[in-house]
Every structure is written in C-alpha cells, then in structure tokens.
C-alpha cells in the first residue's frame, strides 16, 4: 500500500506542477500587450528533500524569456521614443495557447493515474474483504 501512497503523491505533485505552469501561462497571456513584459517560463525539476516522495516533480524557479522585445511603431503611445517606437512584450499568443493545451493534457494524464491508483487500491481492499 505504500507504493500506492507514494504514487498518489507523485501524481498529485504532477497536477500541482501543471497547475502552476498554467498560472504562468495565464500571466503571460494577460500581459501580452504590456510594454516591456518578458514572458515567464518555469522548467520542471525533480523534487528533493527529506519528506519528498521519490520521483515527484515541482516547477523550478521562474525565469524570464530573454528574447528581444519587439519594437512597435505607435507615435501616440506615451512610452514611444523619438522615432515613434516603443518596446512591446515578447509574448507569442500561439506559443502560450500551445503551452496551455500541453499543460491541460499533462494534467489530465496525471489525473487519470491518480484515479486508476485509487481504483486499484479499492479493488485490493475488496479482495481483502471477501
């Protein structure tokens, strides 16, 4: 049963990580038109520590995408320089949507694993009950 328990913990850590990934995606999408905004990315890493389940995952530290910010031509913008350009955000909505969809799929996979583990442990208990 300890296998079930630790596997449940690992699946829950996967769901938690994907939820946080979706949080960064939503921040990026919300700030797609913010001048000077750099998109946030968080690479996943293995969870370490005395009470961490082996194999659990967690989102790493947030880093900012260092790609060049696009120069947007808008002379009426309050942040425009002498040539009428200002620095926009380097958020690509297509990339963010793909990332969100990937997070959703991965979350679903973790959820299925969680559900299956529960079903398996319940079946095992049923066997004990007979």
């Amino acid at each position, binding site marked *: 049963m*300890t296998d079930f*328990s630790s596997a*449940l913990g690992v699946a*829950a850590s996967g769901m*938690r990580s994907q939820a946080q990934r979706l949080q960064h995606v939503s921040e990026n999408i919300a700030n797609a038109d913010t001048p000077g905004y750099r998109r946030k990315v968080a690479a996943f890493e293995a969870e370490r520590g005395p*009470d961490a389940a082996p194999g659990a995952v967690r989102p790493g530290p947030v880093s900012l995408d260092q790609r060049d910010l696009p120069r947007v031509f808008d002379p009426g913008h309050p942040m425009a320089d002498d040539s009428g350009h200002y620095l926009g955000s380097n958020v690509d909505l297509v990339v963010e949507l793909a990332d969100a969809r990937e997070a959703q799929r991965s979350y679903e996979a973790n959820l299925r694993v969680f559900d299956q583990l*529960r079903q398996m442990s319940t079946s095992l*208990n049923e066997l*004990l009950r007979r």
Partner: protein
Amino acid sequence: MDVRNSLAAGAYAQARSQISTTPTGQPAGEVFAAAVQSVAGTLQEGEAQARAAMTGGADPHSLVLALAQTELAVETAVTIRDRVVEAYQEILRMPV
C-alpha cells in the same frame, strides 16, 4: 506532507511479518494499537488539510491527496477490523 508511513496497511504488513517471524516478539495488541494510531494520524492529517483548504491555506491538490490517502487508510482499517471481529465470533461459536 508525508503520510505514507502512517498508512494502516504498512503497519499491518509490518505486524504480519513480526507475528510470523517472531512469535514471542511484540504482542499483537500493541501492534494493532500502533496500526490504529497510524490510521488516526492519517485521519487527522486529512482533517487538517480539509480545514486548511476551506480557509484558503492549502491548494486543492493537497486536499485531494490527503482525502484519498485517508479513504485508503480507513477502508483498510475497517476491512481488517471486520476480519478480526469475524474471526473472534468464529471462536466464540466454538462448542465447548
């Protein structure tokens, strides 16, 4: 959050191995008491997580995890209790 060691089944497996290998070791009563205490610990953990989730302190994943583990532990404990009571009644039914 580490509740995997406090699951009843783990304690039960431990108890079984102890009973089968060293019959003169730990008495069964103590082993069962330890198992029940670990189940109670899992229950308390689940309740604490539920309280924290209701007050906004914990994320729902921890709540679901704690509740699933509590369910597992309680199911196992109830099953084992039923079997023990059944065996006891079987002994009581013995013609003397």
